[in-house]
């Protein structure tokens, strides 16, 4: 389980970074989204990974703090998702404005001379 989650985070982050370094604005925004998925999964995993555990309590079991999932990373990840969603939307608008004003989708606003 740990291996699968860490591989998923690694692949997402790796592809995100690669796309982020590409020259087209669309690639950059997809790269940012992938990176933020990776980060969200990472935050989520800091609460500890368990499979097959009861949501709160298994029947007939006495409750103790050790059995609850840590709620704080969940709250953090929720906030992080909302914020990255909003800023990505904002970036999309700027990206479109840049495309309209400069006439190209290169991140520098002009094509490189070759």
């Amino acid at each position, binding site marked *: 389980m740990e291996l699968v989650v860490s591989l998923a985070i690694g692949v997402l982050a790796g592809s995100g970074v690669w796309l982020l370094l590409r020259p087209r*604005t669309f690639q950059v925004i997809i790269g*940012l989204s992938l990176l933020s998925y990776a980060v969200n999964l990472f935050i989520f995993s800091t609460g500890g990974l368990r499979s097959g555990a009861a949501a709160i309590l298994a029947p007939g079991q006495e409750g103790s703090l050790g059995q609850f999932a840590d709620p704080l990373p969940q709250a953090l990840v929720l906030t992080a998702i909302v914020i*990255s969603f*909003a*800023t990505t939307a904002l970036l999309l608008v*700027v990206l479109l404005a*840049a495309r309209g*004003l*400069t006439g190209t989708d290169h991140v520098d*606003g002009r094509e490189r001379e070759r």
Partner: protein
Amino acid sequence: MSAWTDHLVIAPILVPMLAGAAMILAGDRRRRTVVVMGFTSTVLLLAFAALLLGTAGAPEVRIYRLGDWPAMFGIVLVQDRLSSLMLALVAVLGLAAFVSSLARWDRAGAHFHPLLQFQLMGLNGAFLTGDLFNLFVFFEVMLAASYGLALHGSGTARVRAGLHYIVINLVASLLFLIGVSVIYGISGTLSMADLAARMRDVAEADRALLEAGLAVMGIAFLIKAAVWPLGFWLPGTYAAATAPAAAILSILSKVGVYAVLRVWLLLFGDEAGASAGFGGQVLLAGGLVTIAFGSVAVLAAQNLPRLAGASVLVSSGTLLAAVGSGGQAVTGGALFYLASSVLALATLFLLIELVERGRDVGADVLAVTREAFGTGEEKEDALEPEEVGVAIPAIVAILGLAFMACALLLSGLPPLSGFLAKFAMMAPLLGPAGAPVPAASWVLIAALVLSGLATLVAMVRMGIDVFWASPPAAVPRVSLLELAPIGLLLGLCVGLTVAAGPVMDFMLAAAQSLHAPGTYLDGVLGSTAALREGRP
């Protein structure tokens, strides 16, 4: 402990938030209502900031628990001398930017005033919050508003620079989140005070990972502070922004410096046990390289906005290097420098736009060409033998004097506060008479002096070009609304100079409580302990 002053701590966040929301409801068309709301909000902010600044230090640390949850579970706002100082700077810059925007810039695009209010809210929140995740949230509020402000007025140059600015800051935010979650995973807390208390007994096996998490978060702070090599986005963005927006942006890079000051000194100060001093060399070296890069950028700047942007780099570098050099008295001087340089940079950004207004498009390029090839000046005395001197219009003279004051402040020449600030940093670096001065201090002193020289050379050259060699084609039309904020900011700098004694005492006290964070920890965690025992 009166209830009224306790609730004052949250006012700097609530006032601009409510004002901004009400402004959006009112809409841009009802300009008079919006302006009245903006004015009320910024003046109220200034009053609250002045009250908080006046009462800072008694009690040493003031805590505001939201929802009355204990500090380790809930959210706390913490107000001490450093945050009061930053709040006051934000309030002053907010008022200056607001007033100067009224003359023309607030009509250059939609929603200038609400964005300004949310910007102020984010800044105030970042300076007040006591835990790392809220710091992230307020960073985002502040950045989201700053994206809007940097793009205000639209245009190709702004959108192009804004795109880089937004992408870089989004990546920085992701790094911030990675750092925060590593810290939480290891230590189980996000409250800065609680974290500082737990730092001492982290298991040896986990310490490296915790330090790595803090370092990743530190990178995010340093991107905001525009340290070399993470600061290439800054001059372009600031140069492209409109004057009032650039004035408020000039404190944005100082938020990174504030975060470093607060978190680094709290977690890696002298009392931190095994981790004490972690990363201090990086701060010092990064600061020095930033000063060097900023000085070269200042000298290479071919127009005024670029020059101002490069000066922001110099000021960031100076602050980080001074903090990294580790002395308590040096930090005190650095805080004085922070106040003085923020005010001076904001003045310069407001001033530039007024000066540029009267000049022909491309005058800067012409001036540079003339300097390089020496053409265009020879025929003058043959043509106008009678003229003794060129009369300088009054308004140009006023702008020129203000520019001169900015040059003195930024390069650190007497008699204004820039000189006192640099002096206050250098004197403790030299140490007591007779004691050997470490090499790092010599390097820092040399960097301070040389960056001052570079700034002076660049600003004198630019000033001669702008005000004497190529006088404005037409006298710039400047309204009182645009001159008043410049007067206010420069007046405050003069005030800092005249009242340097008490101000310096305040800064030294702030530096002392930063370097010995016992009072901060007791203030935040003590209130938790009291609550656990059932006391109010």
